[in-house]
């Protein structure tokens, strides 16, 4: 665990240091007249300093070292991230209706490995239900594309 925490601390340290540099570029101003970078600088510097402290605290051997993910447990969240990002990107192109159908389809086939009957029924009913609720009933202006 300590190894991953060191990576997290290092990442936050870099974010803090980089943000502090950018804050100075924005214009620090003065205490009397703070510029746009005044508070961001102090926050970023504090983030970098706290991350450095955290990094130091996490140094040294880790007797209870264990992986961040148990074998195979990362697969379903990783697939879900791919399905979600594909859904959001597709929604702009092929429209809400078709993208929602593909979301259910992708989710049930790739992540849940559901039976075909379940995949078909849930995808059709879920998409129709969402369309009726959000487009017909609540009149949310969702992207149009293929089909509707």
């Amino acid at each position, binding site marked *: 665990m300590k190894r991953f925490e060191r990576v997290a601390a290092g990442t936050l340290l870099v974010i803090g240091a980089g943000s502090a540099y950018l804050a100075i570029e*924005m214009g620090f101003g003065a205490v009397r007249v*703070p510029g746009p970078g005044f508070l961001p600088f102090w926050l970023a510097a504090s983030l970098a300093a706290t991350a450095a402290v955290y990094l130091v605290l996490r140094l040294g051997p880790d007797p209870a070292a264990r992986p961040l993910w148990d074998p195979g447990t990362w697969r379903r*969240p990783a697939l879900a991230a791919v399905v979600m990002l594909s859904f959001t990107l597709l929604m702009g192109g092929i429209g809400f209706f078709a993208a929602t159908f593909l979301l259910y389809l992708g*989710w049930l086939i790739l992540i849940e490995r559901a039976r075909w009957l379940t995949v078909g029924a849930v995808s059709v009913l879920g998409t129709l239900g969402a369309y009726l609720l959000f487009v017909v009933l609540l009149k949310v202006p969702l992207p149009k594309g293929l089909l509707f």
Partner: protein
Amino acid sequence: MDAFHGLLSGFALAVTPVNLLFCLIGSVLGTAIGVLPGLGPAATISLLLPLSYALGNPVTSIIMLAGIYYGAMYGGSTTSVLLNIPGEAASVVTCIDGYKMAKQGRAGAALGMAAIGSFVAGTAGVVGLTFVAPPLSAFAVKFGPAEYFSLTILGLLLATYLSGKSVVKGILMALLGLLLAMVGRDPVTGNERYTFGLFILEDGFDFLTLGMGIFGIGEIFISLEEQVKAELVTTRITGLWPTVRDWAISRWAIVRGSLVGFFVGLLPGGGAVIASLLSYAVEKRVSKHPERFGEGALEGVAGPESANNAAASASFIPMLTLGIPGNPAIAMIFAALLIQGVTPGPFLLKDHPDLFWAVIASMYIGNVMLLVLNLPLVGLWVQMLKVPYAILAPSIVLICAIGVYSMKNNIDDVVMMVLFGIVGYVLRKLQFDLGPILLAFVLGRILERSLRQALLISRGDLSIFVTKPISAALLGIAAAMILGTICVSLYRYLAARRPAKA
């Protein structure tokens, strides 16, 4: 208007058919998400923010959102008792004795006492809210920018101290949340900050995008990873109404739970989770038979379930009177008020007394509704547990996506939400508590505004923060907390290095 007359006028508004309907909808939804593992009140409130905006009436929408929050506290116990999985975080501790009771055939007694304890404590919390909020509001009117700055600092510090196991990790998350709040246009000069030339970042991150991402989507990732095979106790649930013996065992646990919950709920970062854990510890300590805890002790259910409801009611106090949300779910309600053009804080009672009192009155009504919903309809909630997560999860993703998209009709916001979800998931894996990010994000803008106003008033003299008595006292408490932590850490470090005596 005194509290009594204010409450009467609040009831007049809360009992209109529309408000009663949305109070019921909020309570039912709250119970449902409390029952269903993997979807917490913060995520649900964020899902319904667009709907609350569409309702148009801030009173009605806040009544519904408040109902979701305190309703979730009721529903969480059902899953804890019958499935040994907390429906939401504040019911974690109820699993210990609740599930044991269910295994012993006493699920009815556990669920019944949880519902009654929740009702008593929830109502006691609202009574506290009724009488504490107005004087606190009147006091907070005296707050200027310096006091607000110091209060925000103290609030953030408390949130980081109370929210997780590691203070350093909490501070890191709070600073990250504050930094995220700085993205977008500078409110004074209009200069772009951390936008990297991207159009989508010009207005900064949206609260909804961040909240739905790290809580809604992040929770889905975690749930997908944890394929919990839980055993649902399916025996017929009888004996919901407590016996005289049950009352005798539980009455003081309910009273203590209500008090613990109320005071913990007042603190930023306190909230229902810590209240229930603390109440369980208190009950175990005061019990003449602590060995019964973990083996199906009724007090181990009654105390924590009372505490989380009292805390839920009390956590409205700092938000409504000071404009400081204490936990992520309350931060979502805070955002809902801002979306509706209502600024929570000391002037809320003066500027919007109708909203202030109607929400409080609706909480009395909502608690009665929840008692009715949770006792006779427990079988219905049990059926809900049989809905497969395989169907639920993509539907939640869809609702999150539509909620975020409908705010600005922008697909990029939905992509951003998923990215925040991935970041939130990784941070959770690294055991970072995400509450401080969201709280800091909300408070970041208050912090910057009050800091700049205070420095403008004092012409750059930083002593304004220590020469004003209220501000000095608040900063003094914050400094004492930091010093105390350093001293304790140093003492532990030195104690660990000291060689053990032979």
